[in-house]
């Protein structure tokens, strides 16, 4: 199995190249191809999630007016283009589901854990390449089931991405039958895929590091992906178990979550959020790691406080297990628990603050290069700061009484998952594109894409804080039903128009991505002058990654070392030449 010797074996591994097209590009066991497969698949799901969001925004901005072109959705969803309430509930549910499970999480973990872990650790491949391939194809199956559920009679799941029981457990309560069950089946498959991946990432990090690559010489991206894999390994089975219980309630008459025969609706919430809050950190920690790598590179300086950054990741991951109750302050849970969960939740602000200050410390007295990955990483720091601070409002059990389930939480989650995670993903795509495909993405268009996205993003999501402060409930089909929300209709229209523009602003990214695949400027081995081991091998790296197994002499952030000739020093080169 995987040991240090396997690394040496990797060189020999690199020779038997004659694989058929199918084995090389479709049922591939090469971690790089699997990462790229995840990338293309997840970009499709990201687009699906975005399209669903556009329909939600249409209804909120222009309630009851026919959405142009929505006639194709059919009589059951949008007769004459007018979105129906039950379809709206499905839109809300599926937008959250696609973005969280099929876009953000696999874009970070599926793509970059797969692509980066072996390359950055100096390994020829993952510990379990075949499991890795299986993880991808089970994920595809899961995504296909979820996509199919959009088209079944009765519509897709409509109980929210949090699928609270009993609404989700009894088909008559939503009018959704097959759709809600397919949601469960898809999530079970998703869970299996995630587990296979996690086992693989953890084993690889523990066993397959190149000689000299001690744990505290690992880049922060790898630390974050490693800790994330542990979180996923422990959290996802809880979700899988809970949704299987839910499926039994839906189909074979059990009553785990139904009060009539002694079940407990709050049990669902405890199980879901016991998974769901670690999930939040699964969605942000890898982006924090990636952004740390990019900021050190962009500032041409070592990351400030490397060890505290590692400990902050571990602290966030640990605290993530004991805060789930803050989602349940108003649920009827014992108010004493509201106190303890508030304190543990607020404690997470401390390691989060440490990370932000260390990013600032990294930029301090740097020589900052504004390449597109760096711009997105800086955008991440600014927006994550807003998202982190707005979290303190909800963490306060008292303030939460008012803003719970309002647009304030919608603003918060999007500042963390879009402003945070998705900007981190964009930084990663621009940064590692040359390594993945051997060509650069266009920098000018990358910067235009960043500027448009950053501005429009804030125009969409910042006003949502104000909606939330006005008491605007989330997940309501038609805010004009309420007198106290009438004054927000103009703002809702503004957000909707901004959201459409934000969607359109992704076209430069898409064109840049595909154009650069074929026509981009050729990238050398190390276009960003970075120190990671992945930059010491050709772009794209051959099967087996490294011609000879690398030896690691120091940490990944030796930028601008006073005794080095250049302002970077790859990890496989000792100080003073070698």
């Amino acid at each position, binding site marked *: 199995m995987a040991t240090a010797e396997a690394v040496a074996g990797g060189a020999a591994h690199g020779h038997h190249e004659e694989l058929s097209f199918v084995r090389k590009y479709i049922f591939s066991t090469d971690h790089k191809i699997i990462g790229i497969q995840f990338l293309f698949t997840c970009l499709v799901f990201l687009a699906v999630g975005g399209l669903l969001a556009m329909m939600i925004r249409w209804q909120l901005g222009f309630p009851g007016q026919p959405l142009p072109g929505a006639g194709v959705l059919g009589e059951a969803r949008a007769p004459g283009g007018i979105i129906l*309430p039950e379809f709206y509930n499905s839109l809300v549910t599926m937008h959250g589901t696609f973005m969280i499970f099929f876009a953000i999480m696999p874009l970070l973990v599926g793509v970059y854990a797969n692509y980066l872990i072996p390359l950055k650790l100096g390994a020829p491949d993952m510990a379990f390449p075949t499991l890795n391939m299986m993880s991808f194809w089970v994920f595809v199956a899961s995504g296909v089931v979820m996509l199919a559920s959009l088209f079944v009679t009765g519509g897709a799941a*409509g*109980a929210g991405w949090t699928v*609270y029981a*009993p*609404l989700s457990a*009894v088909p008559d*309560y*939503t*009018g959704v039958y097959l759709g809600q069950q397919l949601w469960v089946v898809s999530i079970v498959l998703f869970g299996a895929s995630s587990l296979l991946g996690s086992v693989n990432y953890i084993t690889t990090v523990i066993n397959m590091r190149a000689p000299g690559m001690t744990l505290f010489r690992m880049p922060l991206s790898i630390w974050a992906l490693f800790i994330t894999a542990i979180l996923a390994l422990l959290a996802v089975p809880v979700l899988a178990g809970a949704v299987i219980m839910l499926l039994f309630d839906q189909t074979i008459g059990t009553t785990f979550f139904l*009060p009539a025969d002694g*079940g407990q*609706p*709050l049990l669902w919430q405890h199980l879901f959020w016991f998974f769901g809050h670690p999930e939040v950190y699964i969605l942000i920690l890898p982006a924090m790691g990636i952004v740390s790598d990019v900021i050190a590179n962009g500032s041409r*300086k*070592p990351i*400030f*406080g*490397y*060890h505290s950054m590692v400990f902050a990741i571990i602290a966030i991951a640990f605290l993530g297990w004991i805060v789930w109750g803050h989602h349940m302050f108003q649920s*009827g849970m014992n*108010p004493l628990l509201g*106190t303890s969960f*508030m304190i543990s939740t*607020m*404690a997470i602000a*401390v390691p989060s*603050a*440490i990370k*932000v200050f260390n990013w*600032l*410390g990294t*930029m301090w*007295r*740097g*020589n*900052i290069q504004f390449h597109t990955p760096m711009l997105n990483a*800086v955008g991440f*720091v600014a927006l994550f700061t807003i998202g982190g*601070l707005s979290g*303190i*409002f909800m963490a306060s*059990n*008292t*303030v939460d*009484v*008012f803003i*719970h*389930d309002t647009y304030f939480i919608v603003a918060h989650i999007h500042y963390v998952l879009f402003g945070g995670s998705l900007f981190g993903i964009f930084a990663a795509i621009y940064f590692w594109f040359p390594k993945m495909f051997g060509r650069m993405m266009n920098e000018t268009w990358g910067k235009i894409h960043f500027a448009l996205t950053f501005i429009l993003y804030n125009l969409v999501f910042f006003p949502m804080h104000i909606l939330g402060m*006005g*008491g605007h409930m989330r997940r*309501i*089909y*038609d*805010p004009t039903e309420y007198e*106290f929300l009438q004054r927000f209709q103009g703002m809702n229209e503004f957000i909707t128009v901004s959201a459409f523009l934000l969607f359109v602003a992704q076209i430069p990214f898409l064109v840049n991505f595909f154009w650069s695949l074929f026509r981009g400027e050729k990238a050398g081995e190390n276009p960003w002058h970075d120190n990671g081991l992945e930059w010491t091998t050709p772009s794209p790296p051959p099967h087996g990654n490294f011609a000879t197994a690398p030896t690691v002499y120091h940490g990944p*952030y030796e930028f*601008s*070392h006073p005794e080095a000739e250049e*302002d970077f020093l790859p990890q496989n080169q000792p100080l003073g030449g070698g």
Partner: protein
Amino acid sequence: MDWLPAAASTYAADIDRIFYVILAVTGVILVGVLTVLIYFLFRYRGREGRKAFYIEGSNRAEVIWTVIPALFILGLAFASQSVWPKIKSPDRFPTDALELHVRAEQFEWNVTYPGADGSLGTDDDFTTRNQVHVPVDRPVVLHMESIDVIHSFFVPAFRIKQDVVPGMQNDAWFQATETGEFELACAELCGLGHYRMRARVIVHAQDEYESWMVEQS
């Protein structure tokens, strides 16, 4: 500031006060962080021939920016805790309150009143649908049940929100400080009619409330 809806209950002002304290603290931190960020981006922008200052960190800085946020957070937690039990702990609910029974179902609120004898569960109780009538300046305790899915009792002007979970009784209280009409919304997704699970809350002057009660029973 009229971002928050006009407050019309006793503890609304408490919640708003904590809200604005957190807004002030986080606002100052946000402006500070963004100012430093923008200054660094400008001051340390890359130039030819410039070399970054090689430094790996500073333990003193780490201690400072661990301890200071921790103190802030502790302060905000204490401030919040000074209000929370008053709103949510059943043993701190006001005594001599008017007690109402609320039955939530897809997609309506049914409110049962104690009638002339002043106690629930007797023959002279009566029920209103999608209307909640209460007197001003008197505490009201709600005993809430749901017969189908989870709903959430939310009156923005009173800053009250409490989920109503089937299979258990959820209690909540408020005391209105203004007469007039307010809106009650369901704040927990409860099905296709969730968005119109709306009721009117009518706060009467004390004497007006007495006569309304007599009319009903």
